[in-house]
């Protein structure tokens, strides 16, 4: 079994009639993903790449038992699309768009948390469970089926990591981009818990970045994990984020968000730290006997 996206996933594509939505739908289908329908309000009744298009998510849920959705709607329309999917009972939402207004993200996140929905993104390449399917824009040929779980804040670095694992003969169970925005829908620690419980996954690679505190929070759970965790954190040489008035200082704990702080927290929690992505393969081989 993979996590989140598995053989029970019946996905829809919101924004299927758009240029990118249509192209990506084709690639997801070619990869073997079980897509059951597309949604575009006002385009109900059309057919795109053999999939029926409906005006709303409810109809796809009623007729096809859809339980996951990948979003290709423009950033400013994303909020309503996500809130509808949550209301319709969708349990995994992959929000691809970038440039989504922050207030919209906060609303989606709040709604998803209240209903226990997995919201990946916004600004994520998506999720891929090699051999099963992909909901997102990652090139499918960069991933191979296997036992490594990847959680990445960076889309492009997750591709790099997968490539390195492939060369080392280490395939992936599921690769998840949590999203590159300052605020994203799902917490890294929650995804780690899924990987820990997944029989297929033998080790987890975390690809982190400067900023935020998701890696520090994840460290709290890594302490308790049976499976090995390898972490790579990018951004040592990046300029630190600009301050948000006094308010930024008031709400943040000291030292949080720096690469050093993250590495320290992960190291102390027992994760192995990779200095560069290609080090991950060696570290993994060391700890998987």
């Amino acid at each position, binding site marked *: 079994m993979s996590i989140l996206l598995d053989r029970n996933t019946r996905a829809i594509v919101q924004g299927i009639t758009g240029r990118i939505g249509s192209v990506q739908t084709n690639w997801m289908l070619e990869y073997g993903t079980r897509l059951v329908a597309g949604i575009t309000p006002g385009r109900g009744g059309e057919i795109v790449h053999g999939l029926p298009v409906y005006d709303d998510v409810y109809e796809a849920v009623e007729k096809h038992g859809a339980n996951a959705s990948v979003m290709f709607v423009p950033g400013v329309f994303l909020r309503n699309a996500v809130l509808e999917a949550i209301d319709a009972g969708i349990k995994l939402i992959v929000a691809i768009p970038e440039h989504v207004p922050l207030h919209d993200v906060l*609303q989606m*996140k709040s709604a998803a948390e209240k209903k226990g929905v997995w919201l990946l993104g916004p600004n994520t390449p998506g999720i891929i469970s090699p051999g099963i399917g992909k909901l997102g824009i990652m090139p499918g040929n960069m991933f191979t089926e296997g036992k490594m779980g990847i959680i990445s804040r960076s889309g*492009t670095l997750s591709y*790099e990591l997968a490539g390195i694992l492939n060369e080392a003969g280490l395939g992936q169970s599921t690769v998840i981009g949590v999203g590159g925005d300052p605020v994203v829908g799902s917490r890294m620690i929650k995804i780690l818990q899924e990987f820990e419980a997944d029989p297929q996954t033998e080790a987890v690679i975390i690809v982190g970045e400067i900023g935020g505190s998701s890696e520090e929070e994840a460290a709290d759970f890594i302490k308790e994990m049976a499976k090995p965790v390898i972490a790579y954190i990018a951004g040592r040489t990046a300029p630190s984020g600009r301050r948000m008035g006094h*308010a930024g200082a008031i709400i943040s704990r000291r030292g949080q968000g720096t690469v050093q702080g993250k590495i320290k927290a992960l190291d102390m929690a027992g994760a192995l730290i990779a200095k560069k992505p290609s080090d991950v393969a060696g570290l993994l081989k060391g700890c998987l006997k």
Partner: protein
Amino acid sequence: MKLLEYQGKKLFAANGIPIPQGKVVTNALEAVEAAEQLGGDIVLKVQVPAEGRGKAGGIKFVDNSFHVHSEAGRLFKMNMEEFSIEKLLVEERLDIVEEIYMGLVVDINTGEIIFLFSPEGGVNIEQIVAGRPEKVYRLPVDPLSLPPVYQLRRFIRRGGFHGKVLEGLTGIAEKLLHLFFAYDLLMAEINPLVILPDNQIVALDAKVEVDDNALSRQKFEKKFWEERDQLEKEARGIGVTYIKLDGSIGVVGSGAGLAMATMDMLEDRGFPPANFLETGGGITEELMYNTLRLVCKNGNVTGVVINIYGGVNPIEKGAKGIVRFIRERGTPPIVVKALGNKQEECWETLREGGITVINSVKTEDAVESLLELIDARKVQAKTSGKGMM
């Protein structure tokens, strides 16, 4: 997009939050005129998007109208952080009974909006936060259901206020909250918010930041003050994110993580990056051409690593931009690592254009390759130099 103080105050006033009387001026003579119109004691405040203007000497209290011209002149000659002073705000000076802190900000870690309030505001707010954190009250705000006015009143009452002052503060809190949501703000801060002897309440400062991603649905005039650098402004025009750094190797990544990883590796090899640059998902031939032009405007750049993936990005089109740039300029050395959809087409274009292509999955291979190329050129340059002598 951060608003300058006077822009933030304009927004406040338009939404019912009282501000001092004042005028924005662009030279010392205008400052004198404005001071005369206002009468009485005045304050001169430089208008730049820097923090800590007061401590840096950018705020001057002028008691004698005789000194306005000279003080304003001195301020216009200042530089604050990288910013030159183009505008001053000339304001009336108010009798202040109490200074209060009020702010709204997003906690990016939790995704919560936090309303912050402290009955002791002013320049020393950070010491108060550090020393007596119990004096700073925090009210988490659910973005799906805003607190009604009576909950705000109750919250502010914790600061020990009652009667008319409590009502005034509650009204301002309500308006600040309205502003925050109506204008897609990332931050709205009033420090200090002051109480006058007649219990009137006035916002003496305004720190307002608007979400760039929401500008399409907001009516703000799009003025970006944050870029500390001409190149950063140009980058916004091209549609990429660029931050200038001190090193010598240009970096172009199709994602922020990939760009940062590349920078980190360059640093480790003793060749610090000259910039951070992320294209995002909008690569075209033109964008890639303009991106390279931008990166190479930095005179320190001795080579460029381009590290891109084709997911939604058409890397085969980006390749054409790279080739065009090098065909026109010939320099500097460039190494491209490009993987993903249509990678073969991309490589072919680049190779035909004489560009070094790395088809390894490892970024360090691209870094090494570029450093070798730079080295080789140096040797070549020395050799050819010798030959010419």
